[in-house]
């Protein structure tokens, strides 16, 4: 799988639609403390299917929707899309022939959730299958979140073995 871009809209501090194009090799995201860099990481984690609000640094899943600022009222929904090139590894017949695939996750303030592939509503298990096919089955080490290095250092030997189990 080769990721081509990420689109964030109404997710955390990204009140307005934001597009991030992924280059082939290495890219970096910079900015002062508190400006929203880790929120981009949370957006990727969320569109991959994260179900735990705590892993997204919130109390409830609703916390990921833009909750307003001085000049702007809260958003009614949060949405993140991940677009990638199909490099021939997609098995589901509906998408196997498409050159580009977009996965979208949406959450409304009502609590209603939507998942889409190429803007067509689908089930969460279709998203999971798609990611399994394209090598993102084991997401645990694809994202090294802020503070994980420190947490690993502080972890006790019996906690550390869990880290190895998750990599299996």
């Amino acid at each position, binding site marked *: 799988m080769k990721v081509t871009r990420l689109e964030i809209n109404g997710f955390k501090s990204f009140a307005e639609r*934001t597009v*991030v194009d*992924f280059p082939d090799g290495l890219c970096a995201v910079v900015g002062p403390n508190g400006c929203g860099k880790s929120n981009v990481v949370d957006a990727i984690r969320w569109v991959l299917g994260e179900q735990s609000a705590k892993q997204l640094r919130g109390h409830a899943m609703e916390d990921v929707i833009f909750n307003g600022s001085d*000049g702007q009222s809260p958003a009614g929904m949060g949405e993140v899309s991940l677009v990638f090139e199909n490099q021939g590894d997609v098995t589901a017949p509906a998408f196997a022939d498409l050159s580009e695939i977009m996965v979208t996750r949406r959450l409304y303030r009502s609590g209603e959730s939507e998942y889409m592939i190429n803007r067509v509503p689908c089930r969460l298990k279709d998203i999971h299958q798609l990611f399994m096919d394209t090598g993102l089955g084991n997401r645990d080490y694809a994202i090294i979140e*802020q503070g994980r*290095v420190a947490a690993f250092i502080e972890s006790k030997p019996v906690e550390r073995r869990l880290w190895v189990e998750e990599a299996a």
Partner: protein
Amino acid sequence: SRKRFTDTLEEANQRLAEVFPVLFSGGSATLTLEEGVDPLDAGLHIMVELPGKKIRTLESLSGGEKALTAVAVLFALFLIRPAPFCILDEVDAPMDEANIGRFHDLLSRLSQRSQIVMITHNRRTMEMVQMLYGVTMEQKGVSKLLAVTLQEGEAMAA
């Protein structure tokens, strides 16, 4: 299962044997299980041999040595089943100048197989990537992201 765990541990140690010497310019590290306990319950120790020094546990290393060793282990675990991309949030924060150079060598190798995104405040990291995004919050509470040049990025990280 017991076998699956010990197989994963073996694999992790093989990856660690490749990754650790790049970050430390030599030396080695091994994940070892606590003796005399069932492998499914045993604690996991990290034994580290830095170039020219005796073998020690992770806990007895200096602050920066611990951080770099932890990065080596996390990369080793990633490489067991490498995902097509890897997102690293401020992993370079505790590294000194010498380590950052070797860390970048490792990233260059990894980026041939996986797309890598680094969240960073570090100028040398900004200098070595193909693309740079700057995030700002001019309107308090609303983030804006845009592609930036190295100079713009360095000013923004400030």
